[in-house]
């Protein structure tokens, strides 16, 4: 089987933003994404993982990863998330190089 170069975008953000971020991802033509509940610390506050009782479960983080075939789409997802979501909410975005199998499963770009 042959491996093809592709880009992964990782977004770490407050849970409350999930649906908005997923919309951005889909509107950029990505065919899928993976979400993992996370805790973390950053410029803002401690976000606990959602294991322990917490009055504000919605403020825990999610880690969303999306793989797309080309760099420009990855960058566009990353930029749009930062511009539209992170003005008032905490979060980070980064890109990575990956190699995928079955490239037709990913975005058409």
């Amino acid at each position: 089987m042959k491996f093809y170069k592709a880009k992964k975008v990782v977004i770490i953000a407050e849970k409350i933003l999930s649906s908005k971020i997923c919309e951005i991802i889909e509107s950029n033509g990505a065919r899928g994404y993976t979400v993992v509940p996370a805790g973390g610390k950053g410029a803002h506050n401690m976000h606990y993982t959602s294991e322990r009782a917490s009055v504000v479960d919605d403020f825990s983080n999610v880690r969303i990863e999306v793989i797309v075939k080309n760099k420009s789409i990855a960058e566009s997802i990353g930029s749009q998330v930062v511009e539209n979501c992170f003005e008032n909410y905490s979060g980070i975005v980064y890109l990575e190089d990956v190699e995928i199998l079955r490239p037709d499963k990913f975005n058409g770009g």
Partner: protein
Amino acid sequence: MDFLGDFFLRFVVQFQSPTLGFLIGGMLVAALGSKLKIPNAIYQFIVFMLLMKIGLKGGIEIREANLAAMALPAFFSILIGVLIVRVGVTLFGMLPGINKTDGLATAGLFGAVSASTLAVAIVMLEEEAIFFEAWAPALYPFMDIPALILAIVLANIHLKKQKEGKDTKVNVWQIIKDSLRGSALSALILGLALGLLTNSGNVLESFYEPLFRGFLSILMLIMGMEAYDRIKELRSVAHWYAIYAGVAPLMHGLIAFGLGYVAHLLVGFSPGGVVILAVMASSNSDISGPPTLRAGIPSANPSAYIGASTSVGTPVSIAIGIPLFIALAQIVFGL
């Protein structure tokens, strides 16, 4: 003097109530660095159980209730929700170093209602055998929603003024929907509807009622642990939030007590109902309020409003507010 004496007596007794004991126990446990934790799944389940019980009970008894009597207290609830936010804005406006939107979000949270504090009040009233209309806890959304809406609308008008260019429309209907869809109000309203429309007396008596007090004790433990854990967040913001959070619950409760007394004179609102109204005003939303505000006023710093409410507001309204309003009722209404 007599009142003060009675109040202190009651206050001391209250400190022996297991409810308060669990609250303080939770704070101590967290302060001492214990690894004890109640899983989040249990917390969410307990909150659901308590609201379901309150809702079912209300729904069942509303059937026979004269709902006309509910009109004035419901109107007063709306009034109180709005008033608390207005007063909060004015107060925070006078204080130095307060970001306007942070102040608005805090005032909104204190105008909104806490289901757990309400549950404690219900248990205390039952223990003291003070009657209240079964629909009284159903006044909850009438105070909660207007407070949240007003805070969010005011914050957005303020932001719009600041940056003319960007047009931030406020969708009031969206805020109402968000509030009603929050897990707390959903559970309460679902319970009310099931109580009203189905024969749920059996399941209420055999399941939801017997577990009520026990689950409340665990909820208090969680609230206590959270109160301590969030103090650090409170420290990161202006100390005015802590001061407001210490004073506002009693002030709000007393205003509501006054209006409740008016309703007592005009439409015979029960003494227990007056206490419920005061406790709702005194409480601050701990379940649905924070996410609604986070979404509605994203630029407000959650540490300000959550720190203030969880670490100071809730303990004050449970440990001082509830016994105060009950003692007041006993004296005013000669119970």
